């Protein structure tokens, strides 16, 4: 097999007890990024378990509402992965995605969220390794940023409500 296997299965388990484990939602387009994620699997590239993939036909299907909903429900980070520029299966959907994500990042700031919690990346169907590195890097970045402040605020208000109720 190839020399690019990345982290060996055994090495991944060495996580520190009690450290923050972020929850990440990864939207993948059907034609490039979802296929890239599959290729990572076929190539047995190991990566953290903190993400869940949602398949969309095109990255341009990712409605800003989906991203906001994910954050509102407690996601610590959201990845949007699409075909490289000029490779879009639907001609130019990814160009729209790029513009939408740029705007959405501004909006996140207004909500008091660090815009870096949302990340757009191009991953092609042959880039299993890039899928792996994107997941690894983003997981680490979010781990450093800590939990979604909206979630904490909600928990806090729930706790306060709970206390006042008693």
């Amino acid at each position, binding site marked *: 097999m*190839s020399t690019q296997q990345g982290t060996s299965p055994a090495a991944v388990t060495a996580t520190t007890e009690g450290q923050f484990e972020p929850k990440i939602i990864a939207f993948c387009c059907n034609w490039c990024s979802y296929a890239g994620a599959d290729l990572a699997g076929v190539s047995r590239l190991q990566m953290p378990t903190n993400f*869940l993939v949602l398949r969309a036909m095109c990255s341009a299907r990712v*409605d800003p509402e989906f991203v906001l909903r994910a954050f509102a429900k407690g996601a610590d980070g959201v990845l949007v992965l699409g075909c490289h520029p000029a490779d879009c299966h639907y001609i130019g959907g990814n160009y729209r995605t790029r513009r939408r994500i740029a705007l959405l990042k501004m909006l996140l700031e207004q909500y008091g969220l660090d815009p870096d919690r949302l990340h757009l990346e191009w991953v092609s169907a042959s880039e299993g390794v890039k899928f792996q590195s994107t997941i690894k890097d983003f997981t680490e970045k979010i781990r450093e940023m800590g939990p979604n402040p909206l979630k904490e605020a909600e928990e806090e208000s729930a706790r306060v409500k709970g206390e006042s109720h008693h």
Partner: protein
Amino acid sequence: MSETRGAVVVVGGGISGVQTSLDLAESGFQVYLIEKTPSIGGVMSQLDKTFPTNDCSMCILSPKLVEAARHPLINLMTMSEVVDVSGEAPNFKVTIRHNPRFVDMDKCVGCGICAEKCPVKVPNEYDASLVNRKAIYIPFAQAVPLKYAIDSSKCLKLTKGRCGLCEKNCPAGAINYEDKPVDETIDVGAIILAPGFSVFDARLKKEYGYGDYPNVITSLEFERFLSATGPYGGHVVRPSDQKTPKKIAFLQCVGSRDEKVGNTYCSSVCCMYAMKQAIIAGEHTAGLVPSIFFMDIRAVGKEFEDYRARAEKEYGIKMHRATRVASVSQDPVTKNLTLRYESGGDIVEEEFDMVVLSVGLEPTKGADKIGKIFGVNLNKYGFAGTNVYSPLTSSRPGVFVTGAFAAPKDIPTSVAEASGAAAKAGAYISNKRAFPEEEKREEIAVEGEEPRIGVFVCDCGINIKGTVDVPSVVEYARTLPNVVYAEENKYSCSADSQQKIKDLIHKEKLNRVVVASCTPRTHEPLFQSTLKEAGLNPYLFEMANIRDQCSWIHMGEPEKATKKSKDLVRMAVAKSRLLEPLYESKLPVTHSAIVIGGGVSGMIAALDIAGQGYHVDLLEKTEELGGNAIKIYHEEDGRKLREFAKELITRVRNNKNITLHLSTEVKDVGGFVGNFKVQTNQGEIETGSIVVAVGAEEYKAKEHLYGQDPRVVTQLELEDKMQKGTLPAKTIAMIQCVGSRNDEAPYCSRVCCANAIKNAIAIRKANPNAAVYVFHKDIRTYGFREDLYKEAGMAGVRFVRVPDDKPPMVTKEGDDLKLVANDIVLGDDIELKPDMVVLSTGIRPHHDNEELAKMLKVPLSKDKFFLEAHMKLRPVDFATNGVYLCGLAHWPKFTDEAIAQASGAAARAMTIISKPELKSEGIIAAVNEDICDGCKICEPVCEYKAITIVEDPKNPEKKKAVVNEGLCKGCGCCVAACPSGAMEQRGFKNQQILATIDAALEEGE
């Protein structure tokens, strides 16, 4: 198969064979696709990126391979070869030998345990033998079919009778060491040969040290270096020490344009792929300086010249023009390589870290055997013999050729030809077209019913179960709302599991099915057809990918992987609860085509469609047929193009299936695939498909005193003069690239070099005393036309290479013409007093292109030629379904290329108009008319122009969006753009996706 369905044997499963198979099958013919290796895909599957778009090769190829394997009319026969052909078209008897795979294809699930256990390591040819595979193997991860095969020459059991580990460990019992070759004879109407090419053996160029020096590699090996799935994971490193190189030299024409090795022709593709490799390598490796050593850069294809300019200017690739490297030597310690070459008259030595040999394309190994078996002639180079005017036809009637079997060529040309060969083969069996009939079944009604979800969790042998605690996932699934049944399968995809799912749909009254296993990209269609067979709408199905995207990537973390599998199942269940039955709507088809343009391309396209029994309306703007060809006198393959064009005109006029509309202009185009309405100045024509063959125009020269001095003429005018008698001129100067490769038209017009050389040779033959000069930037006689270049040199034609940015100057001195040019090789200006100056004027897009493109809603390239859907794999398609492209309207090209492409466009049109009806996609956009307020935001967002804003008939004050189901491709881009929530994507509705997100972020058990 249907007794009456016409059949075609296609030999070779590379991109050309796959495309021709798909086009035939989509036109209602049975295809036997014969591939000698265990997987289809050919050389293209080994490539990293493709020029000039730098698209990922596998990403664009892989869907075609899967489509071919899945098509009900394509019988894919891997590890097979044709051993005998008898009879005549359309009644061939073809004997096919199925060589033993030693693995039962019906049982193998592609889990890979056999290869894991196999103790025999074999260098993997797919990865340039730089890494090992096992004796039981799949050639590459995306192989189609994904079935293992045993390499009988390496397997211990088969060679020495010991081992047997794969058999012991195969959970599916698929191994069969007793497998034997089996011969089968089939009846077919036509044969298409697409066996591809072989690469030149670089060992034969001893002076470059390939095979002895580890850091000298071939270009095909370098593709694997660049690939993310290759031996070095896409990192550019030296084989000797795995260090990152700083300087790489690319040596062109290794095994091409080289009489010493017996290959006089140009391989046509190496210039482009070398520039591509240099660009990609530079992108992968900071600080890398690539150098390319070449004689001429032959960037003749669509947007290739731009690519060359970028390679040089933006990527800083050092271009050593007109330089052939004499030798390569290796430093025994550092393994660095020293190149000796000539520069400015001096012999220079330069050291590099790595050398890539751009190896040429040769006839496929065993081409002569293929020639014998099929009874077809090869040409003097050993490629299949064809004629300029019938480029897809072999010497045996009913046997056609496509791709690099007939000459070295690039992927888009091979793909266009592949479609063309399908048109030619289809003509032999056009009366035996039969589309597979869909069985009609009562569908289980689900509307208003409470969801009853069945969940099937797959072990995939040990692929999932080895990491994930499958029984606990099953237990968990049972606790989820609306799940009424859950079970574990050893292989959910196996035939017995399919039967079980069908039984349970009835027994448990399941109205939603969730399978947690591998990826929907490969397996969703399988489960969907199972649902269909059980009477459940196939869209009431959802998959959880717990193998490729869970167990395989979290192998060391069984607990977390198990939890994640539960999360993924919970998400799939949440979505399935909201799934609705979807229906592909059926669209009627007008069974005829319109061809716009009556030149050679248009006439060929019309004749090929008419030849399959369909009606064609041929629209020509002028009063006569023939286009540019009627003006061209020179001979190719012993015949003048104008004579050929005249013959075509007669054939078109006599064809009862063709209605000729002369002096007819397109005024407007409405409708959509299968149902176009074309308005012309002569009235409206309804049609199912449109072929654009409007041709192009000759550049009208303004430079070099053209139009001011009668001694300055174009090549066409020269031919006219030559027709009328010998030329009185003693000194003739030909100037290349007039109106090409300049600021106004940066592209190369492709045909001018060969045409000029042909005329130059003719002048020298008629008048050996005439001095003929050709002033050029590069001589681009690619392919077999390279022989013309050589012949011209022998005939005494003098070639003068001038700088890219400094064309020759023609002035008048008294009554004389004076020409001054900078000779790069001489390094000085030369001066001539020619009696005649001949301008090789370029090809310009037709002046009507912009208007027509707007009417057809199709794009133009930046040079104003029509722009196809994909430059590599859809060379004659537009993104708009049902509209096709060929000839000079697409790009400058030679007659044979235009003819092949025209046949290709005809075949593509056949895939539409031959169908009894068309189906729209199931997953498309749909408007909720109650909510839509016609704000028009969605309209420009749609890449397919599928949305129109119309007045609401119920309320004239209100507007609303309407989605054309024939045009919508289901990307969902408009849905995300809709501010009111009126636009929905079927199968991916907002509520369904939001429910999935909510489920993903719920706390699990």
